[in-house]
């Protein structure tokens, strides 16, 4: 059974960027990455992936249609145990607080520090194992 990470961002090239950053991991099958270009699509994906295999959701905040912050409570309602890490250009205190109140597991600033993200994923993988 595969381990899934869902990435939500309205920028299409995020997928290609992530796939290359985690090329080795993806190749070796440590985890599978799913990409959603909008929050509603992400919600559908999250519902579809069975519980123990989905270990992390990474989501942008500022997106048209539905923002990451609007999506967050919906995800938590659906899958309360899955950690959600928000990614934003604005890592200010108010956002940090709000994100924590809404039940996010963390906040990563943009541009993404991939070594930090890799460590984050590694620790989630260990927890899941």
């Amino acid at each position, binding site marked *: 059974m595969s381990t899934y990470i869902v990435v939500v961002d309205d*920028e299409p*090239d995020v997928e*290609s*960027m992530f796939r*290359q*950053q985690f090329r080795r991991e993806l190749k070796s099958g440590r985890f599978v990455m799913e990409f959603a270009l909008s929050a509603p699509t992400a919600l559908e994906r999250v519902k579809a992936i069975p519980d123990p295999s989905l270990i992390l959701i990474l989501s942008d905040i*500022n997106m*048209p*249609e539905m*923002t990451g*912050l*609007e999506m967050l409570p919906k995800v938590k309602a659906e899958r309360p145990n899955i950690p959600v890490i928000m990614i934003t*250009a*604005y890592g*200010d*205190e*108010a*956002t940090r607080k*709000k994100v924590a109140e809404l039940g996010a597991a963390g906040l990563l600033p*943009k*541009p993404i520090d991939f070594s930090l993200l890799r460590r984050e994923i590694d620790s989630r993988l260990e927890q899941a194992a």
Partner: protein
Amino acid sequence: MARTSKTGKKTKAKARKAGQAKGGKTTKTKGDATGRRTHSAADQETEVTRLKRELKEALEQQEATAEILRVISASPGELGPIFDVILRKAHDLCGAPFGALLPYDGEFFRLAVQRNLPPAWAEWVRGPLRPGPKHPLSRVVKGEGPLQIADLRELADRDPDAPMPRAGVDLGGIRTLLYVPLRKDDVLFGVITAYRKEVSLFTNQQIALLQTFADQAVIAIENTRLLTELRQRTNDLSKSLNDLRTAQDRLVQTQKLASLGQLTAGIAHEIKNPLNFVNNFSALSAELVDEMTDVFQDPALDEDSRRKELDEIRELLKGNLDKVVQHGKRADSIVKNMLLHSREGSGELRAADINSLVEESLNLAYHGARAEKSGFNITLQRKFDASAGEVELFPQEITRALLNLISNGFYAATKRKAENRDAEFEPILSATTRNLGASIEMRIRDNGTGIPAELKDKIFNPFFTTKPAGEGTGLGLSMTHDIIVKQHGGSIDVVTEPGEFTEFIVTLRRKGLAEQKNPGENK
């Protein structure tokens, strides 16, 4: 002993009362007697002659008055010519061979015009002259009416120390002297003087006539004063109007700069996204090149797998370079867009996708607000009609208008949150588009403080602002209104509930702007 006028007992009594009480050297008269005498039937011929003379005098007076009025109306704001004609007519009609007109400013008399004054005397009266207590003019200053001095020499002889009667006699050769004040409502504007070289009293009729001319001079002075004031006020007003225009231009510029500042912050953020991709894909490519070297040197790989690996890396590298170029171009176009905004004028009229335009404005406003104030937070809701389609418009201007509406919404919603301290309250701004067929509708709604009913009519007025001094120019909504209504022939309405929400509804026609207007004309 006393010298009297020839005009009856009434005047005589008055003159005695006013002037002769002090020694009888001067005679004061009032121009109220008509000089009518009783006459017998035998005096018929004399009577006719007298009537003829009176008629002639009346005619001359009327002509003089008419001429003075003509000069007054022909010389607006100039007293010189008016004084000149008044003095000339007054002297001619009342038999004064020489004299002067001296305006009074509340302190000094100054010679304005004169007739036939001996030069030394003209020099003496030129002024500024403040009459001493013994100067006969001081009585006029104190409020006396027409003042006649029958014999100035007599006065000078009686009081040898007083300079004026002496100078008048010695330098001016004056014997009989008449002062007629220019006075209105107890304010003295000046005096007309009439001199005779011999002792010969002015008749009451002559004095009355002089008084009439003096009154006309007062009217002329008043007119001139009013005219000067009017001119001064007009000058002041046109100056403040100019100042106002300059200030207005500056404010419009400030408003444009403010929205440019907002744009710049938003745009800077927009540039960061493609720049991140450029950086990321470049760094990834460097790693891929390293990986390629590894693949070449890996002895464990057979030729097929090596080729397969290298092909894969080459494809990725090619893709990455495409992405670097693509995001570089994206950053470039954002910068170009920013330059468009900073440029004068309205840019080009073109068909633009309404949803993209609203989305872009939302992003610019949001990132601008975030950049301006790091704690700023608001939930953006987009309710875009997928069929909204394209509209012919000046994209820059409509973006500017939308930015104003959106940032006002941000301000109102944030203000409400700050005011009610309700932790539950969440500021929300929604942008809605709707396809109305031949036109489109855009709604910008915030759940902020709302607009009180009494201010609702004023919000589009230039310079109207509810923001604290220095925070708003009061031009945002007025410029927005101009852009939507005047430039684009659209409409803008506001629906609001104080303490609840404000919604601006903008409608634009899809086409037809090009026929009415030359592109970029409206500036």
